[in-house]
Each structure stands twice: as structure tokens, then as C-alpha cells.
């Protein structure tokens, strides 16, 4: 595999929703031997695709279509129930507000912690620190615990770290919608810069206009299945048509 490549082969993900899940050992013991009251909820079913290095890839779909779960699987946060995902290269992920920050640590300590999690040395992070502080624009707050940060500061610092660690793969889950206009513009600029450098970027969103302006290729997920995959314009048109015909706004319910 070459660096920046992502292969998703036959991936399914099941979450078990245990109804009346025993919350204590006592209950668990009392219920031994009885059938578990579980609902299997397949968030993804047999998803298969491949992302070439350097592609700006978008995942689109309505709420609950499984796109965020797929991103989490790529980020190795969950393990697929079936199938396999392989990624090659250093991966940086921005999954949600304050991805991967520990509330009690200061911004600076969190930057080092994040670096360690990405496999970067302290020295590397120390060198990148000025850029990160500058990019995030949070100034002296870098030495305050992140739990006192505003949501905007959280996201700005998170994004600043994610893009300043020379990722070879960047996973982004609509977080950029949180910052102000100015910050959003900077994010776009930076993502474009990373794209030019050859970074593979996977963006999850249901903002069709944003996807159209950024992505080369788009995958459309619907109820955990990959409906279409291809050129951004083509897939987004199909998706929008589906949404306007009223098919897109139903929340997924249990199968």
C-alpha cells in the first residue's frame, strides 16, 4: 500500500443496544442464564470502497446514515464487526468538538498529548507549537485548562493541531462549521494547502455546497449502505435529487 491510501473492504458495524441492560453486577448475576434483551442495530452493512492517495473524499448522507461511524472506524476508534479497514500513513482525525482533548489539561499539555497519540516526538510538537497557537488564535489561553474554553476555541485548537502535525491522512467530521467566517476561511485555505501537498482528506458532512466546492470524489451512504460513489458533482446531484423528492429526511430506526 502506498502512503495516504485507505481501503474499506466489506465493512459492517453492528451496535448492540441492550434493552434494560443490567447496570450493576447484582442485576447481571440475577439475570444469568436468561436471554439477553438485545437489539442489533446495523449502522453499516457491507461497505466496500477504496480511496486513492491525495484524494479529497467526501461522505454524504442524511442523519444516521452511518457516515460518522464509518469515519470513526477509519480513525480506529471502533472495530468493524465484519470486514476490514486499512489505512497507510500518519492519520489525524477531527471527529467532533474538542476531539481528543483532556478537559483538565491545559491547551499546551493537550497539544503534547495529542502529538504523542499521533506518534510524534515532544520536540516535533514543541517546534510546531508556535504555528498551532498562531493558527488557533487562542493566545494566552493555551496555558489554561481546556475545560474553560469556549466551543469555538476548542474546535480552533483541535483543528490547529490536526493540520499542523503533517498528517498524511486527515479525517474531518463537519467540525469546521462551528468557527466564525474568518476561521472557516482559514480552514478551507489550510485544507487546500494539505491537498496540494498530497494529503488524503476525508470529510463527512451533509452540506452539499461545501462538499461540491471541496471534494474530488464523494460516497453517498444511506441506511448504512453505500448507494453511490463517484465524481463529486455527479453523486451530489443524485443525493440532492433524492433529498428533494422527500427520501432523505427520515431518521434511521431500528431494523
Amino acid at each position, binding site marked *: 500500500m502506498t502512503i495516504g491510501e485507505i481501503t474499506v473492504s466489506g465493512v459492517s458495524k453492528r*451496535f448492540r443496544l441492550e434493552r434494560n441492560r*443490567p*447496570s*450493576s*453486577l*447484582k442485576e*447481571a448475576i440475577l439475570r444469568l442464564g436468561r436471554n439477553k434483551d438485545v437489539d442489533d442495530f446495523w449502522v453499516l452493512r457491507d461497505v466496500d470502497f477504496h480511496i486513492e492517495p491525495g484524494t479529497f473524499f467526501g461522505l454524504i448522507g442524511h442523519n444516521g446514515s452511518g457516515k460518522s461511524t464509518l469515519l470513526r472506524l477509519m*480513525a*480506529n*476508534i*471502533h*472495530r468493524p464487526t465484519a470486514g476490514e479497514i486499512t489505512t497507510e500513513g500518519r492519520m489525524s*482525525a477531527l*471527529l*467532533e468538538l*474538542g*476531539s*481528543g*482533548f*483532556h478537559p*483538565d*489539561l491545559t491547551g499546551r*499539555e493537550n497539544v*503534547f*498529548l*495529542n502529538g*504523542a*497519540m*499521533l*506518534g510524534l*516526538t*515532544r520536540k516535533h510538537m514543541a517546534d510546531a507549537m508556535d504555528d498551532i497557537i498562531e493558527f488557533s488564535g487562542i493566545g494566552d489561553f493555551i496555558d489554561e485548562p481546556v475545560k474553560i474554553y469556549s466551543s469555538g476555541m476548542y474546535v480552533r485548537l483541535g483543528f490547529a493541531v490536526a493540520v499542523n502535525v503533517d498528517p498524511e491522512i486527515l479525517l474531518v467530521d463537519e467540525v469546521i462549521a462551528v468557527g466564525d467566517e474568518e476561521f472557516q476561511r482559514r480552514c478551507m485555505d489550510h485544507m487546500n494547502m494539505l491537498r496540494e501537498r498530497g494529503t488524503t482528506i476525508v470529510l463527512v458532512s451533509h452540506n452539499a455546497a461545501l462538499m461540491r466546492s471541496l471534494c474530488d470524489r464523494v460516497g453517498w451512504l444511506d441506511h448504512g449502505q453505500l448507494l453511490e460513489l463517484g465524481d463529486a458533482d455527479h453523486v451530489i446531484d443524485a443525493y440532492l435529487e433524492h433529498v428533494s423528492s422527500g427520501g432523505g429526511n427520515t431518521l434511521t430506526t431500528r431494523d
Partner: protein
Amino acid sequence: MLTLSPSARKSVNLIIHFAERESKSRYKRSLLGWFWSFANPLTTVAVYSFVFGVVYNAQPPVTANGNAENFGLFLFTGLIAWSVFTGVVTGCMGWLQGVSDLRKKIYFPTETALLGGAVANAIQTALEAVVLLVIMALFANISWTAVFLVFSLLLTMAFALGIGFIVAVLNARYRDIQYLIGVLIGVGFFLVPIVYPPSLLDRDDVPEIGRQFVTWNPPALFVEIARDGVYFLQTPDPLKLLVAAAWAVGTFTVGWFYFRARSMEISEEP
């Protein structure tokens, strides 16, 4: 540094990071800081020395040179191994809980949080061990057998981590585990000969099985090896060394594989 694979180096960095955090954050907002880490063992030693040494007037076993008989020292020697065991087992549950939110948002090898906590515990224990050895040296009751204290502490650490890995995973699901462990530790303190010498059980009215249990349960073996090394200054029974090592390696291995098999599920706990 040794040549490590990138993923091993990443794990080492993370372990250092978590160890640092554990050591620093523990007494962050306290004036006396590290002093508190000694307060707990010292009060335990003081209280039990008073109750057993003064109130009951119990005679501690004779030391090697015959002039360090002190109930406090006898206790401290046993307590040092026991507190590694309890500190790491209960610590593991907290260390895992402490990173569980983080783990839902970013991938990292979760075991590094537990290993990092264990490193912090080891540093703290090393300080206690130095204090113990200095006191023993002042009583001129010291010998090369002190290596058995180190050996005992390493085995205790491995054994405790093995148990800790398992209970941490279980505790992520059922929070009862931490209370259950608290109770078991309270009972264990008296089932391990810490406040009494095992020879006290060499009586006809003590059932054989009780005597065997108090002699052969793993923490008791660790305590005895530590005591042989710095209190009695003798080489421990080779059979006991072997059994203790087997318990430590076996438990660590089982715990490690159990943790590795289950650690990906932790991010799915609600």
C-alpha cells in the same frame, strides 16, 4: 535510545506522558504535595504499631542482627509490597476511567494509560523503598538480600497489573467492581500476614487449610519475600520464589491478553 518500531516508540512516549500526568496531577492543588504520598503508609504503620505493639504488646519477630525489632518496621516492610498491589489494582480502574472519554474521540493504545499509571506508582514505591532501606541501614540491619525486596516489588507490580487489566475492563461495564475490589482489599489486608507474622498461625486450633492459604496466596508470598530480603536478611525459600514468579508472570499474561482482546470495546461503552 533503543531501536524501537514506530508503534513501540509511540507507546513508550504515551506511557511516559501518562506517568507524568499521574505524578503531577495527583497532588496538584495540595500545599504539601508529595508529603501526602507518605502520609498514608506512615499513619497505617503508626496506628498498627500502637494497637499491636503497645496495646497488645506483641513482639515482632527477631531481625537478623537482633537489634531492629520494631513493630513499625516489621509492618512497613510488609506494607510496601501490599500497597503496590492495592495501589495498582485500584489505580487501573481509575486510569482507564480517566481516559475513556478521550478514547471515544481519538485512537491510542489504551493499555498505555494503565502502564503509565503503574510507572508513576513504581516511582512512588521506589521512594518508599529508599526510606525503608535508609532506616534499616541506620539500625545496621541491611545486606545484599535487599535485592529480594526489589524482586518482590517487581513481581507484585506484574501480578497487580494482570489483575488490574481485568478489573479495569470489567469496571468499565459494571461500576460495582470498584466497590467490590475495595471490600476484597479490606479483607485481604488481614488474610495476608502484614500485621502479624505467619508463625502466629502455627497452632493446633488453626485449620491446616487456613494456614496454607495465608502462606501461599500470591500477595502473601510477595510480602514474605520482601520481608526475607530487608527484615530477616535471608534468602527466601526457592520454592516460594518460583511460585511467586509463576503467579506474577501468569497473571500478567492473562490480564494483558484479556485487556488487548477487550480494549477496543471500551470506546463503545455508553
